[in-house]
């Protein structure tokens, strides 16, 4: 019972934070809403019996990644976003579509929960089991992620570089 109450409270905070993140016009406010989302997600992980993942969630996401976010916002000196009217297509189709989709998923989850679900205790929670999954069963995806990170860095380098650089280098060379 306590589990359910906690789940509902933090689930509500998580969703509210995510909506607030989108609605806020100042990047810092959005970033702070993201902290709320990350922290309440950590509590949800804890309720599932994944203490280690919850701790990592707080340290890495709510901690390190958020600091980076805030640094970038400060470095770019990003101000308030201009308000646009929003697209009519989004209002006409997007919002009703999203509501219909989430209602459908919610209905499926409510009517069919308890029949085929994976119970919380069955999932690996302690660091030992996580390590076994990460460095044994899922070793290949874990290693392949390094390629993913590498190309993301390359993308940042490519898209941030000045477009004229090759002509300049030719002239200088």
């Amino acid at each position, binding site marked *: 019972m306590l589990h359910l109450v906690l789940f509902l409270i933090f689930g509500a905070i998580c969703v509210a934070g995510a909506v607030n993140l989108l609605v806020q016009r100042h990047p810092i406010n959005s970033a702070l809403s993201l902290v709320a989302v990350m922290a309440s997600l950590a509590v949800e992980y804890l309720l599932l019996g994944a203490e280690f993942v919850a701790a990592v969630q707080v340290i890495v996401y709510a901690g390190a990644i958020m600091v980076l976010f805030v640094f970038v916002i400060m470095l770019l000196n990003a101000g308030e976003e201009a308000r646009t009217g929003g697209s009519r297509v989004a209002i006409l189709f997007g919002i009703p579509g999203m509501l219909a989709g989430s209602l459908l998923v919610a209905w499926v989850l409510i009517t069919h929960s308890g029949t085929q679900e994976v119970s919380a205790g069955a999932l690996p929670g302690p660091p030992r089991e996580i390590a076994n999954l990460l460095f044994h069963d899922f070793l*290949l995806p874990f290693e392949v992620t390094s390629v*993913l990170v590498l190309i993301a860095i390359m993308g940042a380098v490519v898209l941030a570089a000045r477009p004229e650089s090759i002509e300049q280098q030719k002239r200088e060379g």
Partner: protein
Amino acid sequence: MSLAFQASQALPRGTDYLRILPELVLSIFGMIIMVLDPVVDQRRNQKALGTLALIGSLAAIASTLWQARAPGLAFWNMVQVDTFSVFFHFLITTITAVVILTSYEYMEVQQIRVGEYYALILFGAVGMCLMSSAVELVLIFIALEISSISTYILAGFRRRAAISSEASIKYFLLGSFATAFFLYGVALMFGATGSTSIPTIEQHLRSGSIPVLAYVAIALMFVGLGFKVAAAPFHVWTPDVYEGAPAPIVGFMSTAPKAAVFAVLLRIMFQIHAPGRLGLIWVAAALSMTLGNIGALVQQNVKRLLAYSSIAHAGYLLVAFAALPQNGIPSAMFYTASYAAMNIGAFAVVSHFGGAGERYVTLEDYSGLGRRSPVLAAALTLFLLSLIGIPITAGFFAKFYVFSAALQANLVGLVIIGVINSAVAAYYYLRVIVVVYMHDPRDESVLPAVPLELGAALAITALTTIYLGLLPGRVLDYASRSAGDLLH
């Protein structure tokens, strides 16, 4: 998870590495290019780095052929090497090699720095290859992200053209949204079956009643993957992105990532026996064929025209997914290979003819191409005829097999829609051919000669198009065997 298992084999063995050898080779060459980029002289490194990338992709083709002799699972049931994965590995690495050949001249004419360009193509190919051999949804997701992110970046490589940056950001935003759908589908599938491993999911869904959650999961995964193959109604990004991205890259991203995603779709739809497959595929295929062809009718820009054509072709290909597995899978695989040959060829012509800054891309610019450059015009005509599906070209047998597979599954309605659409499509492809041969040239200036590398790429794609149109048997047999492997 089980400690006993871990004790028996704690470290990956040699065969494990053999089974991801093409991916390893591609990654190593990608890294060598990045390390050499600042060292090699900028004025000469254009070609040197491209050649290195070409060697890398050829080495990957060779390692695919070598790997084919040792089929099996690797890395604790993460990847599976069989004729199915070898088929797609061969296709993707060959596409990579041909696209690198078409890029040589383009990059020089457009004055673009090449270092990261070739490395990104190779790393993207790593993701695409992994997608075709992965049998675990988590690995498929990571590989899909590698392939997607590298194409987002490559789409924005014409830094001086605002339209290219627009293409990149549009593709990135919509693409990340689509990937989120896929990931949500994977999560729900885990909820429904307790596993993300495809064989386990298959067993679970076969053994008992199918949970409703699995239907929702399949639908969400289809949304994510449908976006990546530009199937309607998730196709809206395609014309804008194809118009803005560099022409050789459009040739790349309309074939290689699509082939990889189709491989994943084949696994999910047929190997899992996806519940609710027929309805989803029916709607998406009919919509893609119709919207793609109608959109293409009014295009004046050749790149946009080919973008709408690629939406329509995704629709024809999806028809095969609604058919029965034993002939749906081979016909889909054959279509993927044929489409790759003709589409890369068409974009190779577009990239050569575009000139600096891709100035000549409208239909009017193509008027009189037949007189100005008979060879280029002949090649373009061949690829367009193949895209229509005229006999003795690859496109004919591709469509023939797909539609006959659909007929055997009694999908008469879908086949009628497909055949009507093929007739409509003939109009806009023939319009290009008419402009090329019947109209007077607007501009009599001499076209730059076709360089050796581009000529080689055109020859490879043209010969493949004709080969598959005359002797489809061998490739189709191999595809049928792969279908057997996939279904066992």
